[in-house]
C-alpha cells in the first residue's frame, strides 16, 4: 500500500475517537458555506427565501453531505461493529443473571480446558530447556533389565565411541536417591548422576560458577563436586551468591558446589526435575557400596544424544542398531537381543510417553465435553433471548435489513460473552495450575511438573474462546433470523402449541446424555475405590505404621548396618502397644517391586536369560506378622537363619503351585539371581498378595531372610493395637536416637495404597466433579428452555384453563413435554456409557463396567434434577390466571 494511503487509514482509524467534536465542526463549516452562498444569491437579487432554497439545492442537502462525509471520515464497517458491541454490552448488562450464568459456565469450561492444555503444552509442545532442542533424542533400550529402558556404562561408552558419524555426542544420566545434609538438617531427595559431557552437549551454561565438565568425570571417586539447580540453590542456600566453594554432605560424603544452573533449567526429563547434578565418576560414592561403572550387566543409565545436522532419527537408529548387533556378538551373555529405538526426550526414554498421552488425552476429552455442554447450554439460552426479539427482527427484515447484518448484531453479543468468559477462564486456569503444582501426588519420585501459562497456552485460550463464541452464537443467530415474517409481525406464535423445534430438544438430549456419561464414569470410579477397600491385598494395611531409611546412603557398611537394624528392632518391639515388628527391603504395594530370575532345582532352562522370574524381597523374622500376612505352611524366619546356617526362603502360594504343582513345597530348593548363587531351601509358604500394583494377577514371590541377604535399604513395619498415628512420632524418634543424621520417613501403612489408588482417585474426582458440573449446566439449560416455553405459551395455557383444564392437568402436560427429551437423553447416555466405560476396565478392580447400581443411581439422580428443573416453570404455568393471560396481549 502507498504511504499516503496508510496515513489516511491511520487517520481514519483514529477518527473513531472524538467523533462528536468533528461532526460539530462539519456542521459549522456547512452552515458558513450556506451563509456565504445565501449572501451571494441575495447580491444576485434573489429573495431571502429563494436564496436559501437555491443554496441548499446546490449543496445537495446537509444530511446527504454529512452522510457522505462520514463515510469518508471513518471506517463504516468498524463503526457498525463498535455499535453492535455497544448494543450487545447494553443488552448483557440489562440481564445480569443471564450474563452471570453464561460467563460462569463458559469460564469453567474454558478454564478447565486451559489448565489441561497447559499440561499438554508442558508434556508435548514445550521443548527441553536446552540449545537447539530439536536435535536431542532419547535412546531406548528395548530389552533393558526390569523393563527399564536403560543401558550399562560400558555399553554406553561403546555406543558413544562408535556412533560419532551420526551423533555429535551421546550423554547419559541416572536418577539417584540422596541423603543430603546441610546446616544441620537432613533430607531425602533425588539428583542426577551425569556423564561429564552432559552440560556441554546440551549447550547450557551455569548461572553462577560453572557446570560439570569432562574433567570432572575422569577418575572414579576423584571429583567430589556438584552443581545445584536454581530451586535447590534458593532452598538450600537461600540464594547465596557466594555459594561456589561451599560444601554439602551427600550420602555421608562431602561434595563441593561448583555452580548453579539458571532458573528454568530442569534437566532432561519433563516430570523428574533434580536438585543436584553429580559426575558419574562419583557413582560409587553416591550409591554407596554399589559400583557398576565397569559392569556390562548393570543397566541403569538413560542415554540421550544430539544428532548431527542433517541426520534423521531413522538413520541414527539404524546406526545404533548396527552397533547393538556388534555388541551382541562381542558380549552375547549380557547383550542378547538388545535393540534400540529413538524417541523424543523427556519421558524417561519413552517409557512414560504412553501413560502421559493416555492420561492427558482422557482429560482433554473430558474437559472438551464440559465445554461443549456449556456451549450447548448457552446456545439454548441465546436462542430463547433471540426469540424475545422475534417481532423486532421481523420488522427489521421487512424493512430491508439484510439477514447478514442481523446475524452480525446477534453474534456481537455472543462474542462479548466469549471474550469475557475467556478472560475469567484464564484466571481460573491460573488458579487451578497453582493448585495443581502445589498439590504433591503421593509418589516417591522427584515429580516436578513445570506447569505455567506461556504464549502457547494464551493462544490456545483465545482460540478456544473465539471458537466457542462462534459455535454457540452462530446457530441461534441463524435460527433467530429465519423468521416467518407475517405471523411474526402480527405477533402470533408461529404455532399455537409448544414450539417443538427439533434442535432445541436435540440439545437437551445431547446435554443429558453427555452429563450422564461423565457421571457414570465418576460413579464407577467411586465404586472401584470402594471395591479396592475390600480387595484381598495379602496383608492388612490397618493398624500398622512403616518407617523407611537407607543406611547405605549414610555410609553404613554391612556390620554396622546389621547392628543398627538389630538394635532398632529390639527397641521398637519394646515400645508399648507394639505387637509385631519386622524389616523388609520393599513393602507392598510398590511400583518399585522387581522380578529376578529363579532356577528351580531339577528344572534348569536351556539358557540363563530364559529363566522364569519371580518378585523378590528380603525380610527379617516377624515381618509377615507385622504386615498381617498369613503363613499357610511351614515356618517364619527365625533368629537362627543367619549367614552361617542353611540359606532358606519363604515363597507364596502361587510360587509353590507354579513350580511344584501337586507337590509339597517345603524342603524344595532353588537358586535366585543366577546359577552360581546358593541353593535356597523353602521353609514356609505365605498367602498370595498384591506386590507392584492392585490390578496384577497372582505373581510368584520369594522372600529371603535379611540376615542372609543383607541390604541397607530398609522399611520397618510395625503392627500395633493402638491408634497407629500415635506411634509415628515415637518411631521416628527411636531412629533419631540411634543416628541423628539418618533421614527417615514414617507413615501409616495404609498410605501406601495412595499411590496405586491414585489413578482411580484422580479419575473419580475429575469425572465426578466434571459430571456434577455438567449436571448443573444441564439443569440450567432445561430450566431456561422450559421457562421460556411456558412464557411463550401463557396465552395458550390461559385459553385451556378458561375452557376448564385443571391446574394439575396443565402441570402434568408441561412436565411431560419437558421430560420427553430428558428421558430420551438418559437412554442414549446409558447406551454410550456402556460402550465407553469398557475402556476404563483396568481401573475398576473387578467392578463391572456395567455395574447396575451406578447406572440406576446416576440415571435416577439425573432424572430427578431434570424433573426439578421442569417443575419450577411448570408450576408457574399451572398458576396462570386465565383472565390475565388472555388480556395480556
Amino acid at each position, binding site marked *: 500500500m502507498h504511504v499516503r494511503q496508510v*496515513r489516511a487509514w491511520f487517520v481514519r482509524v483514529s477518527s473513531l475517537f472524538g467523533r462528536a467534536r468533528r461532526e460539530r465542526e462539519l456542521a459549522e463549516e456547512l452552515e*458558513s458555506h450556506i451563509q456565504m452562498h445565501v449572501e451571494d444569491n441575495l447580491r444576485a437579487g434573489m429573495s431571502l427565501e429563494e436564496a436559501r432554497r437555491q443554496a441548499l439545492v446546490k*449543496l445537495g442537502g446537509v444530511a*446527504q*453531505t454529512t452522510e*457522505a462525509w462520514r463515510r469518508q471520515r471513518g471506517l463504516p464497517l468498524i463503526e457498525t461493529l463498535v455499535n453492535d458491541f455497544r448494543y450487545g454490552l447494553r443488552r448483557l448488562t440489562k440481564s445480569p443473571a443471564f450474563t452471570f450464568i453464561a460467563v460462569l459456565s463458559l469460564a469453567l469450561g474454558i478454564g478447565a480446558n486451559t489448565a489441561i492444555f497447559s499440561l499438554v503444552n508442558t508434556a508435548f509442545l514445550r521443548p527441553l530447556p536446552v540449545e537447539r532442542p530439536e536435535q536431542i533424542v532419547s535412546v531406548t533400550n528395548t530389552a533393558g533389565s526390569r523393563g527399564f529402558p536403560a543401558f550399562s556404562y560400558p555399553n554406553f561408552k561403546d555406543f558413544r565411541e562408535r556412533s560419532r558419524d551420526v551423533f555429535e555426542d551421546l550423554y547419559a544420566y541416572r536418577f539417584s536417591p540422596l541423603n543430603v545434609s546441610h546446616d544441620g538438617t537432613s533430607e531425602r531427595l533425588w539428583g542426577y548422576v551425569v556423564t561429564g559431557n552432559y552440560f556441554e552437549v546440551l549447550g547450557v551454561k551455569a548461572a553462577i560458577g560453572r557446570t560439570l565438565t569432562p574433567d570432572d568425570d575422569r577418575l572414579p571417586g576423584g571429583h567430589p563436586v556438584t552443581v545445584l539447580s536454581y530451586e535447590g540453590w534458593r532452598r538450600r542456600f537461600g540464594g547465596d551468591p557466594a555459594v561456589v566453594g561451599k560444601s554439602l554432605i551427600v550420602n555421608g560424603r562431602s561434595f563441593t558446589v561448583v555452580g548453579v544452573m539458571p532458573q528454568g533449567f530442569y534437566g532432561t526429563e519433563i516430570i523428574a526435575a533434580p536438585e543436584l547434578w553429580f559426575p558419574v565418576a562419583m557413582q560409587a560414592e553416591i550409591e554407596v557400596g554399589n559400583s557398576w561403572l565397569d559392569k556390562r550387566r548393570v543397566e541403569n543409565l538413560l542415554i540421550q544424544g544430539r544428532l548431527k545436522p542433517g541426520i534423521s532419527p531413522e538413520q541414527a537408529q539404524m546406526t545404533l542398531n548396527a552397533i547393538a548387533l556388534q555388541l551382541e556378538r562381542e558380549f552375547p551373555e549380557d547383550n542378547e537381543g538388545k535393540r534400540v529405538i529413538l524417541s523424543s526426550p523427556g519421558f524417561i526414554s519413552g517409557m512414560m510417553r504412553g501413560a502421559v498421552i493416555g492420561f492427558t488425552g482422557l482429560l482433554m476429552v473430558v474437559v472438551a465435553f464440559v465445554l461443549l455442554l456449556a456451549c450447548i447450554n448457552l446456545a439454548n439460552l441465546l436462542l430463547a433471548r433471540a426469540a424475545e426479539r422475534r417481532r423486532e427482527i421481523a420488522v427489521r427484515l421487512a424493512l430491508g435489513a439484510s439477514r447478514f447484518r442481523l446475524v452480525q448484531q446477534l453474534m456481537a453479543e455472543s462474542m462479548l460473552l466469549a471474550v469475557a468468559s475467556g478472560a475469567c477462564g484464564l484466571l481460573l486456569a491460573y488458579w487451578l495450575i497453582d493448585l495443581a503444582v502445589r498439590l504433591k501426588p503421593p509418589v516417591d519420585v522427584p515429580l516436578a511438573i513445570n506447569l505455567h501459562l506461556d504464549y502457547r497456552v494464551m493462544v490456545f485460550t483465545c482460540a478456544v474462546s473465539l471458537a466457542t463464541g462462534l459455535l454457540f452464537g452462530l446457530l441461534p443467530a441463524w435460527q433467530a433470523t429465519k423468521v416467518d415474517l407475517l405471523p411474526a409481525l402480527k405477533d402470533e406464535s408461529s404455532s399455537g402449541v409448544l414450539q417443538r423445534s427439533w434442535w432445541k430438544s436435540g440439545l437437551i438430549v445431547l446435554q443429558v446424555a453427555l452429563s450422564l456419561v461423565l457421571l457414570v464414569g465418576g460413579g464407577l470410579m467411586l465404586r472401584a475405590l470402594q471395591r479396592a477397600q475390600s480387595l484381598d491385598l495379602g496383608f492388612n494395611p490397618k493398624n500398622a505404621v512403616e518407617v523407611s531409611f537407607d543406611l547405605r546412603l549414610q555410609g553404613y557398611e554391612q556390620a554396622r548396618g546389621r547392628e543398627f537394624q538389630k538394635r532398632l528392632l529390639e527397641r521398637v518391639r519394646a515400645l508399648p502397644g507394639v505387637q509385631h515388628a519386622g524389616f523388609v527391603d520393599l513393602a507392598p504395594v510398590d511400583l518399585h517391586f522387581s522380578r529376578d530370575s529363579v532356577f528351580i532345582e531339577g528344572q534348569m532352562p536351556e539358557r540363563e536369560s530364559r529363566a522364569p522370574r519371580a518378585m523378590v524381597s528380603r525380610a527379617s523374622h516377624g515381618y509377615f506378622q507385622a504386615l498381617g500376612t498369613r503363613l499357610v505352611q511351614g515356618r517364619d524366619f527365625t533368629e537362627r537363619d543367619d549367614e552361617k546356617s542353611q540359606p532358606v526362603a519363604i515363597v507364596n502360594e502361587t510360587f509353590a503351585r507354579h513350580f511344584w504343582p501337586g507337590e509339597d513345597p517345603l524342603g524344595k530348593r532353588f537358586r535366585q539371581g543366577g546359577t552360581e548363587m546358593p541353593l535356597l531351601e523353602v521353609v514356609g509358604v505365605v498367602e498370595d498378595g498384591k506386590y507392584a500394583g492392585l490390578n496384577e494377577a497372582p505373581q510368584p514371590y520369594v522372600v529371603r531372610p535379611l540376615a542372609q541377604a543383607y541390604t541397607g535399604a530398609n522399611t520397618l513395619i510395625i503392627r500395633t493395637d493402638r491408634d497407629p498415628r500415635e506411634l509415628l512420632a515415637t518411631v521416628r524418634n527411636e531412629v533419631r536416637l540411634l543416628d541423628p543424621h539418618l533421614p527417615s520417613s514414617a507413615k501409616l501403612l495404609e498410605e501406601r495404597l495412595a499411590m496405586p489408588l491414585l489413578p482411580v482417585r484422580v479419575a473419580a474426582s475429575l469425572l465426578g466433579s466434571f459430571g456434577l458440573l455438567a449436571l448443573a449446566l444441564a439443569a440450567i439449560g432445561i430450566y431456561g428452555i422450559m421457562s421460556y416455553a411456558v412464557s411463550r405459551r401463557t396465552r395458550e395455557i390461559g385459553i385451556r384453563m378458561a375452557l376448564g383444564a385443571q391446574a394439575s392437568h396443565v402441570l402434568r402436560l408441561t412436565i411431560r413435554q419437558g421430560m420427553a427429551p430428558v428421558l430420551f437423553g438418559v437412554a442414549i447416555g446409558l447406551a454410550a456409557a456402556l460402550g465407553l466405560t469398557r475402556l476404563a476396565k483396568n481401573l475398576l478392580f473387578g467392578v463391572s463396567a456395567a455395574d447396575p447400581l451406578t447406572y440406576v443411581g446416576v440415571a435416577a439422580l439425573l432424572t430427578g434434577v431434570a424433573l426439578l428443573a421442569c417443575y419450577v416453570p411448570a408450576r408457574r404455568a399451572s398458576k396462570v390466571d386465565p383472565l390475565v393471560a388472555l388480556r395480556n396481549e
Partner: protein
Amino acid sequence: MSDKADVWQGTLALMVLKTLEALGPLHGYGIARRIEQTSGGLLSINYGTLYPALLKLEQEGYISSEWGASDNNRKAKFYKLTRAGRKQLTKETREWERTTAILARFFAPLEES
C-alpha cells in the same frame, strides 16, 4: 457506479489542488465556486460532494485546514496546499497531461501512414 465515482473523485481532487495552488488558502464554498467558474459553467456539481473530497485530501496530508475569517468577516474553514500536496499536484498534472495526450491521439483524425 463506484468506478465512475472514483474517477470523478480523482479529477475533483486534482481540480481542488490546482485551485488551491492558484488562489492560495480558500474555504470550501470558494473552492466550489471557483471550480464552477473555471469550467465556464460546463461543470455543474453538487457543492456537497466537495466536502468528502476535501476530507480525503486532508487525511492523505495533501492539504491542511484552519479556521479563519472570510472576506465579509464570516467564520470559515480555510484549506491550503501542503508541501506534499504541491508535489502531488505536479505529479498528477504530469500524469493527466500524458493521459490526455494519449487519448488525444486516439481521437485525432486518422492520418495516412
